[in-house]
């Protein structure tokens, strides 16, 4: 298990380097800036119980019924959140956290994103859609929908969107 954690931390640090080239995040609410670097930047530290904003289905309200399968498996371990090292890039300081369940990264979010050039202010005042984050993702399992060139009805049947719809219709 320890090996898994270290391997994951390495992946997170690697992701941070990748993500720093084109990433965008906003706080989920209008409660001011991102959580600043209060968490120490030690690699591989386990941060809490996976209660990240992009969460593990633990919302207590009217929880969607379809989310039960995520928690029901006896063999699956509970999601854990790992915080990567802060990485200084030429665009600013970037630190990410990753949520891992069953040895797979299921979510990536920022704990720190400090732009050197003042673009943060521009972005905060941006009037368009609120982009919470943008990540490079090879894993399509955690998306809700997919944008791409218009498919025909036949093309749809082989599309990622079709796979998502089938998952949602079960």
């Amino acid at each position, binding site marked *: 298990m320890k090996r898994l954690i270290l391997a994951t931390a390495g992946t997170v640090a690697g992701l941070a380097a990748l993500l720093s080239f084109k*990433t965008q995040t906003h706080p989920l609410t209008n409660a001011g800036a991102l959580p600043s670097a209060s968490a120490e930047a030690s690699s591989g530290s386990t941060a809490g119980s996976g209660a990240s904003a992009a969460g593990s289905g633990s919302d207590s309200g009217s929880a969607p019924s379809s989310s039960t399968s995520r928690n029901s498996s006896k063999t699956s371990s509970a999601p854990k959140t790992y915080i990567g090292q802060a990485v200084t890039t030429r665009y600013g300081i970037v630190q990410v956290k990753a949520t891992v369940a069953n040895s797979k990264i299921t979510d990536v979010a920022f704990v720190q994103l400090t732009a050197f050039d003042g673009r943060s202010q521009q972005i905060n005042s941006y009037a*368009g859609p609120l982009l919470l984050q943008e990540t490079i993702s090879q894993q399509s399992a955690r998306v809700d*929908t997919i944008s791409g060139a218009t498919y025909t009805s036949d093309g749809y049947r082989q599309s990622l969107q079709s796979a998502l719809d089938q998952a949602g219709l079960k």
Partner: protein
Amino acid sequence: MTAVAGPAAVPFSHVEECMGTVFSFRVAAPGMTRTALTDAIAWLHAIDALFSTYRSDSEISHVNTGILRLADASPEVRYVLAECDRLRDETDGYFSARLDGRLDPSGYVKGWAVQHAANLLAAAGSVNHCVNGGGDVFCAGRPEPGRGWRIGITDPHQPRHLRTTVEAAGPVAVATSGLAERGAHILDPHIGQPATDLASVTVIAPDLLTADVYATAAVAMGPQRAAAWLSSRPNVRALLIDSSAGEQFIGDWIR
């Protein structure tokens, strides 16, 4: 689908084949009545019947064959064609519903249809939903508390793979135009030839009418003109991927 009054159980998904493609609906709490979804789907099919260039009995086909004068067409057809003309001017002629004297507003109709279908759900009380029409997406609200809609953007060079992913709370529209699914089908209206330098353009905007038309016009413009033009538009982010897989981000994406 049967029209049943009363609230639909949420969350739910619905898939509807229409306009030669597939529309995917996702509705999260609090949802709305099943009737509202039935009405939105009926509206989509009615719009297809008015605008399809594949149907000889559509109003667009009748206008093109001279059976119907444009002035006598339905309010929807006259509205859409007026909008297409406005957008032709806004895009310096790179988006056009008129080619060789024939009307083909297909490039406008699908984005408009997705946006209006979503608006119908909202009018019936839904605040959290996502409608995807053939790869053009409009999302309202959030899929569940605490996170935004996660929208994958396909890689035009590997259509079963995602190039990137965006998470956003609605209202947000994401439209992609390109060559991946149907080949070089977007003409540069100024030269009458297919535009092929851009493999795909994805536009993120507050509404899908804008995003869809801008994405299509940008492909027709080609890389340099599209980058300059999109940069001049307010409230727009764009991702341009060229035929050699190079990429260009327009607008406020942190890089």
